[in-house]
């Protein structure tokens, strides 16, 4: 609970559209170089009206390089299979990055995003509709996607590349200080976001150093909207809890805070460099 909580109620079951969809997904593990925590929780509005969680994440370890590849996605809620779009995009992008690393290559980020977009198109082929598969993917499966590749350095720190389509965001939290990897424009808030299978014509990855003791956090807009610039109560609560990796279920519990007006699905994924052994 942060500030004024959301009205209390028991979540409704999600409408069964396109298969089983759990309310909450949690993951966590450590490799030699990194500790990873990830959670995706259904928003209070969706819990109230019985909509499936439309956010998702995927995260993998690449044995050969010790890298972590991670993705978070927010299915566009105006489309029917938004939740499947989010899952497909995350898993396709992380699979693709693992293949790139297997081949000993550097990622071509527009290509990674294009492959994730194409996964939606391929899936859309199997869905009913008279429109062409790309249009069908847009109509049924649109999703934002943020992908990160985090590679260890010998001194125990790390370097991350982050590429995104749409309004998910990355942050570095270091010594209680938040640094957002993307700048949003204020003014009258708009609802629309760019989403796969559309790609921005200009697409590139941001690079950022992760010193030992810092954490890279990736979040969908349900997290970004609540965190803002990190100066408020949510930023303080997260900074207090994420200086070092909490147990996975604690991480999920932190993410699932109750605060009125913040009722979107939330997905957050943290990658902590473990430092020199």
């Amino acid at each position, binding site marked *: 609970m942060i500030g004024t909580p959301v009205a209390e109620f028991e979540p409704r079951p999600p409408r069964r559209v396109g298969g089983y969809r759990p309310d909450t997904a949690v993951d966590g593990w450590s490799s030699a170089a990194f500790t990873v925590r990830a959670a995706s929780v259904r928003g209070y509005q969706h819990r109230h009206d019985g909509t499936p969680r439309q956010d998702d994440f995927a995260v993998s370890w690449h044995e050969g390089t010790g890298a972590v590849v991670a993705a978070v996605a927010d299915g566009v809620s105006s489309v029917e299979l938004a939740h499947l779009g989010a899952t497909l995009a995350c898993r396709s992008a992380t699979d693709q990055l693992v293949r790139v690393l297997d081949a000993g290559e550097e990622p071509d980020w527009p290509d990674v995003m294009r492959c994730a977009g194409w996964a939606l198109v391929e899936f859309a082929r199997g869905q009913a509709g008279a429109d062409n598969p790309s249009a069908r993917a847009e109509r049924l499966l649109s999703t934002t996607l943020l992908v990160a590749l985090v590679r260890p350095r010998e001194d125990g720190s790390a370097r991350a590349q982050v590429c995104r389509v749409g309004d998910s965001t990355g942050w570095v939290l270091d010594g209680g200080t938040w640094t957002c990897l993307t700048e949003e424009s204020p003014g009258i808030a708009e*609802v629309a*976001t*760019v989403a796969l299978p559309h790609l921005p014509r200009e697409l590139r990855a941001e690079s950022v150093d992760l010193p030992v003791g810092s954490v890279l956090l990736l979040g969908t807009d349900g997290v970004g909207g609540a965190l803002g*610039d990190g*100066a408020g109560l949510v930023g303080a609560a997260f900074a207090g809890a994420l200086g070092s990796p909490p147990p996975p279920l604690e991480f999920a519990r932190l993410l699932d805070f109750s605060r009125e007006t913040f*009722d979107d699905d939330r997905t957050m994924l943290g990658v902590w460099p473990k430092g020199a052994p």
Partner: protein
Amino acid sequence: MAENLGNVLPVYVVADESASMAGVVGELNAGLAELHRALLREPMAAAKVRFTILGFSDDVRTRLSLADLRTEATLPVLGTRSTTNYGAAFEALSRQIPTDVAALKEQGHAVYRPAVFFLTDGQPTDEPGWRAAYDRLVDKEATPAAPNIIACGIGGARARTILDVATRPEFAFVATPGVELGLAIAEFSVALTKSIVASARAVAADKTELVVERPNSFVMAVDVV
């Protein structure tokens, strides 16, 4: 910087209190009460709405200002007074909306484009003078927080005027007698606030491309269902 308190949608119910409304003002008040009840059934949406009720005739009276309906026991009651001065209503909105948006931002809210529900029998007594005030209100250059206006005709509403007031043709409604106006407004408000959470696809075709060809490196290996 103020605490980040999340998104809010300012909603303005602007109700015609002219003498010609005498026959329907009871229905209007019942509608507001129903609106209140309907919104309380949607606590997530209600938390994000700030409600203002303005009654207009020859002047404009603020009946409720930026209220959180979850904490209001009852809504104010509208009456009937004198002429139907649309210009006064639109001028009041032009003054009020920028002030309200600034105040909400000052509190730490992100503010969505305001929604105005304009309820009238569609018979302005200041034709065509009101149109200049209207144009200023909906011009995003002159009024950056220019509202979406949903025009609801009640009683013997003139459809042409209702269409002229609505900022989009699909925002023009003419309520037939017996239709629950308040419920209609509540449903519309809830849909609007849900659409805040509902990320939509940005229509920016000049800045994006649709993936229409299979990338050479593509491997389909995912099975989600």
